[in-house]
């Protein structure tokens, strides 16, 4: 088996919420990801998927635990980690006043893609994602589908070994969602490490090589679909999900801490 490019050990994030006090959004999770594999985080809204991925992308700082991407620690070398990473989510928007080409050039440069190869890389991306027709148009003038293509192209602009897709299909219609899945598979086949989060069972079922079921900030199971079928004796991911999640209803989801005033 190839060596893990992403290793996560005991990663945790605690938030403070006016109403609920301290909330453990991510409560000590472990997983590994490898090149040429799509690792799926499957969980309901609020399960801790986005928080986990944001910690990997160094947008959020972990409260505890370790995460390494390409051997680099997210806390100690955040800028180096981000260089090895392409991050895509429904909320990572593009600059409306840049053209498609300028967008790709900017993201290649700012991620330190070798300067003399930037033009070639951009040409390659334009060709590969089929955005040649509108490459000179400002992003604000593009349709949703066109923007999506440019957006994926900018995610891989610097040819990173690791890609994170945080619920990338949210808000997309069926055609665009299928296109997204196709592109992700393609990138996987190039030998990249892909972390993909979703709350849609069928999407995870079809796309992911390995799935981690995350609930209340904890990973309840992590295996291939086949492995999970074997362990639970159920066929559909939906049933498997309910099997794991339903079994922990009695568990304290998060630890409340009241009376935080210092004495």
């Amino acid at each position, binding site marked *: 088996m190839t060596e893990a490019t992403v290793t996560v050990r005991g990663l945790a994030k605690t938030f*403070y919420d006016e109403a609920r006090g301290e*909330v453990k*959004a991510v409560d000590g999770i472990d997983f590994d990801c490898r090149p040429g594999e799509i690792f799926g985080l499957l969980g309901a809204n609020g399960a801790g998927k986005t928080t986990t991925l944001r910690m990997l992308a*160094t947008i959020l700082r972990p409260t505890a635990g370790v995460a390494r991407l390409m051997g680099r620690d997210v806390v100690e070398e955040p800028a180096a980690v981000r260089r090895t990473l392409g991050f895509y989510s429904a909320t990572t*928007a593009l600059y409306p006043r840049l053209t498609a080409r300028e967008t790709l050039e*900017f993201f290649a*440069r*700012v991620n330190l893609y070798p300067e003399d190869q930037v033009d070639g890389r951009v040409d390659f991306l334009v060709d590969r994602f089929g955005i040649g027709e509108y490459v000179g148009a400002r992003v604000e003038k593009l349709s949703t589908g066109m923007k999506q293509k440019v957006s994926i192209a900018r995610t891989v602009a*610097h040819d990173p070994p690791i890609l994170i897709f945080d619920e990338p299909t949210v808000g997309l219609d069926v055609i665009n969602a299928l296109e997204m899945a196709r592109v992700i598979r393609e990138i996987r086949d190039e030998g990249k490490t892909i972390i993909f989060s979703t709350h849609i069972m069928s999407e995870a079922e079809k796309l992911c090589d390995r799935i981690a079921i995350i609930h209340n900030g904890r990973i309840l199971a992590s295996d291939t679909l086949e492995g999970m079928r074997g362990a639970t004796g159920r066929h559909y991911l939906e049933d498997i999900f309910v099997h794991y999640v339903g079994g922990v209803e009695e568990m304290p989801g998060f630890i409340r801490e009241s009376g935080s005033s*210092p004495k």
Partner: protein
Amino acid sequence: MRETRGSNAVAPDRENGSRRRRVLATLFGLEIKLLLRDKRTIFIAVLLPLAIYPAFILIMRAVSRVGQERLGAASYEFAITGSEVELARSLVHEALALSAAEDDSAEAPANFIEQVVDAPDSLLRAGELQLVVEGMSREGYREERERETEGDTAVVRRLEELADVPVIRLRFRNNSELSVTAAQRMSERLRRLRVRRRDRLLRESGFPLDSEELGKLELNNVAPAEKEAGALLGLFLTPLLVLLVLTGGSVVAADAISGEKERGTIETLLTTAARRGEVVAAKQLAIIAVGMAITLINVANLLVYVVLGVFELPERFAVSVEPAALVVVLLLFLPLAAVVSAALLALSGYAKTYREYQIYFFPALLLFMFPAAAAVLPGIELRSAIVLAPVANVSVAVKEVLVGEFDWLFLGLTFAVTTAAAIYTSRLTARALSVERLITAAEIDEAEFVGGPALFPKRVLRWFGLLWVTLFVSSLWFGGELGVRAQVVLNVVGIFFGGSLLIMWRYRLDPREALSLRPVKFPVWIAVLIGAPSAYVVGVGVAQLADLILPVPERMLESFGEYLLAPDLALWQIILFFAVLPGVFEEIAFRGVLLHGLRVRLRPVALCLVTGAIFGFFHIDLFRILPTAFLGVVMGAVVLISGSIFPAMLWHTLHR
């Protein structure tokens, strides 16, 4: 092995340096590109400052030209009518000839043209004529007035007293400016003629002088015209620049972070290899570039229009500014533009959305515009304090430079203080971007940024810094304008008490804890009654000691005396405004909130000294710092020993 490691440790660093520069350059390029593609930015940051001087000058010239034209070229057409036409005509022409012969240049010669017409009144109403002069005999006038007033006895009696002289009546239309001036100027000339005639009569009967020569009054302005204009320019230059940088920078700043947050591009940007410091630095540089561009445009305008005099300025605005002065002004404006830009970016960083940013913008505008107008203040006495206040010091310094006064110490300090403020504000912004709740639009906040009571001790000094600034600005701005009572209420109740409430609300402090609201035993009150007067004696001693080090100017004591024995206040008012209100509310702020906030960090003795010193600094007056600091230390000790704030309130009130 060791060697390899050694050389490796250096090489990546060097490579890193050039990489970081490349990232920064790329980010800055992005910012500038985005900026130049925004029409609003171009308009507000470039066109507006570029156009404002020419527009101003054009308007001034147009105004003065219109004035000239109205004075010079105006010609008034009039007709003469009435029963005594010939008499009136000879008087009018004599009066007109008189003023033409010895025009006193205050007014340009006016052109009066007589028209001989049939129905002058209807032509006046139609606007064909500006004036109708009616000559009447005394009898005719009397009959007409009696008819008009229907025999009003008072009028009739006055008419009886009227000597047998001809009456000239000027008829004009009040709704036509031309007609009004025509009437004014004609009556002015006729009056002068009357004075002339009276003087002639007096002389003929043996009076040696003209009536005008009985005494002479002359007004003489000794300020050179260009200094006067320099003072005027100095007054509005800084506020103008700050306003331009604020509006221009604001569009960019709003877009730079809160706009990016709103569009979601900030998250994209923060997942690139760029560091947060670099992201902030690039934005900062872009906004500063805009601020600088506005400043340079302004100074260039000044150079073109004022120093080189490419266009003739109206006399009142003709300034003679040395190019050297202009360089100094530019040097002072650069850090000013940087402070304003940095502050705008900090606001943008703290705001989650565009709209939230706009809410913050208005107070920020006021915050900067008030000190920017500091040059308007007459207070030279405040100079030593103003040099420490960024923005305000630049305002004063620029005004002084423009009238040709170069106080290099003041200028140097001003530059240093404003630059320091710019650097500090920039760092605030960088911090704003590393606060997670500010960059991600998440609804949940991280524990350390929420600010419960645990956070308060870390922030207490910042809050009191803010209160100090508020106090300073309010005393600069309202100083003297408000009555003494209003001033006390504003400072003590508004700033100290209001600030305390705000802090307690913000950090959810328990008032009983924060303010040491605890009952005390009876003997403590006795102790206070004894302690207060004796401490007062010591306090006077301290004041005298301070006087040795820093002699209080006589004038200041006088004004302080006036202040205390101020305008006919009743005794109860003096007690209320100068003893009870400060006693209660200053204690709440300083021995309550401040003491509580610092308690965790300091041991009792240090705690008393520090709260005392801060209390002293709040009495902005340099000469009162030491005595009040002493009082503050004593009050702090009283609270700590008795465990309650009430004895301190009583003590403070008694002391007052």
